[in-house]
């Protein structure tokens, strides 16, 4: 499992992540951190006509999973209707990594997704949580 997690494709994306950066004039943005481990993700979105996300960028620092998931998510969001992005389930983002995550690392994997929820003002009640993923972040 670890070999899949830290495979070359993932590491290339970690060191040279597509969509890492900032937009000049984002329409929506949010920055979140995971106090448990210090992972930090800022997500910025540019909205075009027709209610679509035309550009997405992320910035931040943290573990391989949090950063690579953010890169995949930003790529995935581009061209997506905002309504669809609001409904994007958390487990879809983890699916983009192509591996399953242990419960402790799920929180790393969904940090960018949580930033998306904030950026699009999705309340916790209406957020689609996918299949049984624990979204709580606790700290010891």
């Amino acid at each position, binding site marked *: 499992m*670890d070999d899949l997690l830290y495979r070359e494709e993932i590491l290339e994306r970690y060191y040279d992540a597509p969509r890492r950066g900032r937009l000049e004039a984002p329409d929506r943005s949010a920055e979140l951190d995971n106090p448990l481990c*210090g992972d930090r993700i800022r997500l910025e979105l540019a909205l075009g006509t027709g209610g679509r996300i035309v550009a997405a960028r992320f910035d931040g620092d943290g573990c391989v999973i949090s950063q690579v998931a953010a890169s995949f998510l930003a790529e995935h969001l581009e061209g997506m209707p905002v309504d669809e992005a609001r409904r994007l389930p958390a487990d879809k983002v983890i699916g983009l990594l192509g591996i399953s995550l242990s419960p402790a690392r799920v929180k790393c994997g969904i940090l960018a997704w949580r930033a998306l929820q904030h950026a699009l003002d999705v309340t916790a009640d209406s957020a689609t949580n996918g299949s049984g993923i624990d979204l709580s972040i606790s700290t*010891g």
Partner: protein
Amino acid sequence: MKEGAMFTESPSDINSREAIPASVGGSTGGEEALGCGPGGSGTSFDAESLRADFPALEREIHSGVPLTYLDSAATAMKPWPVIRAVREYDIDYPASVHRGLHSLSERATLAYESARERIARFIGATDTACIVFTRGTTESINLVARSWGGRFLGPGDEVLLTLLEHHSNLVPWQMLARERGLTLKFADVTDDGQLDLESFDRQLSDRVRLVAVTAASNVLGTIPPLDQIVARARGCGAKVLVDAAQGIVHRPIDIEAPSVDFLTFSAHKLYGPTGVGVLYARREHLEAMPPMLGGGNMVLRVDLEGAGWNDVPWKFEAGTPPIAQAIGLGAVVDYLGQFDRLAMLAHEEELTQYAWRVLSELEGVRLLGPDPREVGRAGIISFLVEQIHPHDLAQLLDRDGVAIRAGHHCAMPLHHRLGLPASARASLALYNNAADVDRLAGAIERARWTLRRPPARPKPSLTRTHPEVGNG
């Protein structure tokens, strides 16, 4: 298999009734021979042979990958005598304490109270009533904050803590401060993670009613100078609480040297069961403190209008206590009592210095805290590996069977002070050896190799461009 005189059976006898030493089964006699008081010691210590006492050390984490356990500061492994003592209670005399008049209950009560006596002696307390069983260090500190602090501290009073504290010796005081209008003061650390005594002195004043300090940092291994802290606190009339959750594992603890008011620790970091811990408090404090929880056992008589409290320490032990676990902690005291404490300490210091040297020679590794070759400190070594987040490191190390902690180790203010979001931590216990350290070093090097930047390849062009946005 190396065991004390009281534990002569083999591990395979675990389910045998004959395997359980009589003293754990309820007799209060016999433990004197073990010399388990502070500074008291057995006659031998052999770090290699005692590994056989800890069955979990023999397991494989993945097929063919043995366990290298370097997370004992989170929770330690348990030796056979402790496992047997707990299991024997469950199998042979699973009865409540201080209640029944039948044989099993009497035996359980004797074993439970015998554990209290041995624990008292282990930390140099002559008055057994000063030992309160709790769920652990966290509950012990909360009990002092709620009960003693709730009665004796008020607006304008100050509690002096240090930046080395675990959240369990910080958050209860924050909660009390908000409720009672207290002010919290914090003694700083030096850049190499030692307690800054000048900062401590600046924060200390006649307004400080309590100094609450760790006996050993769970992140940096720092051992604050308790003698000096207690002397200074006494000079200002302040009481002293020592959080010995880590300290008691790494140094002999004697509540009279220096003389402290409160001392707290957990069994599970001291090779004992989870779910039980100890509050030691001077009798005058316990007598003056109101109970925190009401219920059975903590009362002498109850009518519909009210209740009269039981004597100390039972006043603070409402409900059915963790009986098996307390008996298990008593067995820890017997187990450790067979060893020469000075030899044990020397083993840990030697291993800590070895680990420091080996890790500091690794490329890209930065060690945190004081250098054990210069100052005495506990075998708790936190570190950073260049370019690797501690969570990634911990996951990669686990692949090699190496268990470490990653994160902030319940000490976020200390990490903030050091300018770090998180760190990796390897903690040493009496059963660790140089081979464990070597496997850790090897696993770190493999993790660095695994997470190396892949060779450059022609970068694929972006499939979609957006002229209206800046270039990410």
